[in-house]
């Protein structure tokens, strides 16, 4: 048996990875790398209806290797089966202006939006490979894109095509986006919200509560730039929110400790209030490899499946 060890792209630095190619290609690398890291094929439903052969990949369950072909042609193939979709997932992606920001750092870094889009593409591909139906809603101050969940071939290209559409509205109307999601996903499914969560908590919670009431699994991936998490900026300046134009003069060194405490409180508050709703919540930093958010999302999917 001959196997080639391929570097796992899901463990790469996101900024370095984004420089390697279009995010569509990168998304494939990420998903391939992620799946190979699971050491077994995540796919289910092999027993339903034979569909096709495909070459063996590391991690595939040996039970599905066609040993006759292996004996005849000295070639390892696994049998694929047509399977019914058992999950309908909707990814809600925040593309507001606040997402289009990255902190100043000695290391190259991607914007929160670029990170979120790359994550969305990879996550959608991963779910689609599981034969799940995946939909996408992009929003800023309005819903920009709305693609219903589908599992058919071509869905991923449609999703990827939507990701390059413009956004950058001056606000994040999360409530509208969540309402749209509720309308799109009529069957119980999984809703993954990818946002920097710079929204009004009190306005967002009712919509999230509605999704939960409809029986959806809600998972929030709170995307943060490390500079937002730790306030690693330096010097004295007027710090301005590009969405609300809120203007706060401060000396970074003086308020850093207080800021970090406040962010801790904010995260704790989100976690506590979303937890109370039964929704998942994780903070994702834009310098973390994609394997981390993928594992979180995949874990949620596994728990549901």
């Amino acid at each position: 048996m001959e196997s080639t060890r391929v570097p796992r792209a899901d463990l790469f630095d996101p900024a370095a990875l984004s420089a390697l190619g279009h995010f569509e290609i990168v998304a494939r690398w990420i998903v391939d790398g992620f799946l190979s890291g699971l050491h077994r094929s995540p796919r289910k439903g092999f027993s339903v209806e034979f569909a096709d052969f495909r070459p063996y990949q590391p991690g595939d369950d040996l039970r599905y290797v066609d040993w006759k072909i292996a004996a005849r042609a000295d070639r390892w193939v696994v049998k694929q089966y047509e399977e019914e979709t058992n999950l309908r997932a909707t990814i809600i992606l925040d593309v507001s202006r606040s997402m289009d920001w990255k902190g100043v750092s000695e290391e190259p870094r991607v914007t929160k939006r670029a990170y979120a889009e790359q994550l969305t593409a990879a996550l959608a591909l991963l779910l689609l490979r599981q034969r799940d139906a995946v939909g996408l809603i992009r929003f800023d101050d309005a819903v920009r894109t709305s693609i219903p969940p589908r599992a058919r071939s071509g869905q991923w290209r449609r999703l990827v095509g939507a990701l390059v559409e413009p956004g950058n509205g001056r606000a994040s109307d999360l409530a509208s986006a969540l309402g749209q999601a509720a309308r799109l996903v009529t069957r119980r499914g999984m809703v993954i919200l990818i946002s920097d969560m710079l929204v009004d908590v009190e306005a967002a919670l009712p919509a999230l509560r509605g999704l939960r009431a409809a029986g959806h699994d809600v998972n929030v991936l709170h995307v943060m730039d490390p500079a937002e998490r730790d306030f690693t900026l330096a010097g004295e300046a007027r710090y301005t929110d590009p969405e609300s134009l809120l203007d706060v003069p401060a000396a970074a060194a003086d308020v850093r400790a207080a800021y970090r405490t406040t962010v801790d409180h904010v995260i704790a508050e989100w976690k506590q209030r979303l937890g109370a709703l039964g929704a998942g919540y994780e903070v994702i930093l834009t310098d973390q490899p994609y394997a981390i958010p993928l594992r979180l999302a995949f874990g949620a999917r596994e728990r549901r499946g």
Partner: protein
Amino acid sequence: MNFLAPLFLTLGAAVGVPLLLHLMRRNIATRVDFPAARYLLRAEAEHSRSLRLRNLLLMLLRVLLILVLALAAAKPFLPGLGVGHGPTAVAIVLDNSISTTAVVGGRAVFDRLRDATRQLIGASTPEDRLWLVTSDGRVRGGSRDALLAELARIAPTEGAGDLALALARAASTVQGSTLPAKSVAVATDAQRTSWTTATRIAPALALLVPSGAPPSNRAVLSAVPEPARWTPRGSLTARVETRDSVGYRIMIGERTLSRGATGRGEPILLRASPPERGWQAGRVELEPDDFPGDDARHFALWIGAAPTVTADASAGSFAATAVSTLIADGRAAPGSTIRVASADAASALPALLTPPADAVRLGAANRELERLGIPWRFGALQRSTVVARGGRVDNISVAERYQLVRAGVGVGDTLATAGGEPWVVAGPGYVLIGSRLDPAATQLPVRAPFVPWLADMLAVRLAAPTGDIGAPIQALPGRPIRLPAGAETLESQAGSRRSITAELMDAPEERGVWFVLRGGRRVGAVVVNAPPEESALERWPAPTLAARLGGVSARSASTNAGWVGDTFAAGTTRPAGTPLLVVALILLAAEALAVRTSRPTAA
């Protein structure tokens, strides 16, 4: 508080920088996009009190830091704060009199004093001003290194010096300094006789008296030949200070004249008629002890044939009898070299001249004086009884005398006075007395000193060749002496010579006999000995001497370290630069700590 560099205090104006930054914080012009500004606003709202306090603390720390650095740069001197000592003007009086050569505890006192002085100079800082004053009153200034080099060259003197003068000069030297602290440091053996005339000084005084009792001392206090010119007989009397029996030796030149032993309070008396002729050097030596400086005393004398003398009848019977006595004693010989006569009967010099018995002859006497080139004349007759002063004729009653009036500019000495006026005068080849040698005029002829006085006049004043010094010149090392006119050279016993530059000059520093040469001939001698007071090594108790010289605030020590500390303790302030820098470092650390609490930690 004093500052060495007060201009640096202007750096304190920099405190405006953190103040300005603190006040201008709300007027920041730079804008930075930061989506999470809402968290920043919330953080400031939630922690406004602690942030304000922290900002205030940082501002205060920075203001204090700048102030402390400005203070440190100005090199302040504060009372009771700091390390080391403040800039001090220090005059060190180093007692290098001969008494410091005494050995105490196996080491000369001077060596210990010099070591202490070296340590004191070494403990000074570049901000200090130092002077070194030796017991001769000489003041040396300069850098620390220059003074250390100078100190290495200083040796004990052969005499007592003048420590009172040295102390006064040291005090006036430091008083003239502009430095805030002034101190006089005295390193001495505290010899009682050296400090009797010293007066209290104003600057702070630190006294070092090394520990240990002075040694038991034996000394030759005096050695006096009688008469100064031996013809050729004479005697030598030496006084010795000793607690027990001690051996002695008397030498003339390199020949031992006499040996023996003497005890406490016993003078040494030697009568001799040595074969040497001319000016001779001699010394009286004792067995050596721990203070070798006074174990020998030098003397000089002239040895030669007795002068031939004739007493003229005009001088009176008392003079004739005295001359006969001297001839009978061998201290004079019959002959006509020297005449003792009434002035009007004198025909030649050398002569001892008296007034004429008959006042009628006074004019003739004065004319004769003029003819002989004597710059004195007989004046008015004084019949009031007065007491004579001077030499052997001290306290002799004078009832009748002629005033001796100066006439001309010739050389002449006044040997004795009566009623405050010259009574016995002498010059080259003559001795002139204002009274007849008659009990009706003066009691001198009938008093015991008459014959010795006459012998002295004959031997010292008249028998010596013209221009010779009658008696040796007694001198203290380095002290001024007056030499006879025409003297050209001083020659030591070993033959080394020193040119004479003036009649009034300082005696050689080395003890011994120095012959006075004129035209290559010995015409006299200078005898240099330490003052006998130096042989008394008794000390003042250190605290007593300190209080005597410097008042109640004066300090005394017996160790080098204590003395150095006392000297610089006079400065009421100490350099506070180092403590202030330490404070600055603490402030800096506190500021860094306060800032550090705001820095991000590794994720």
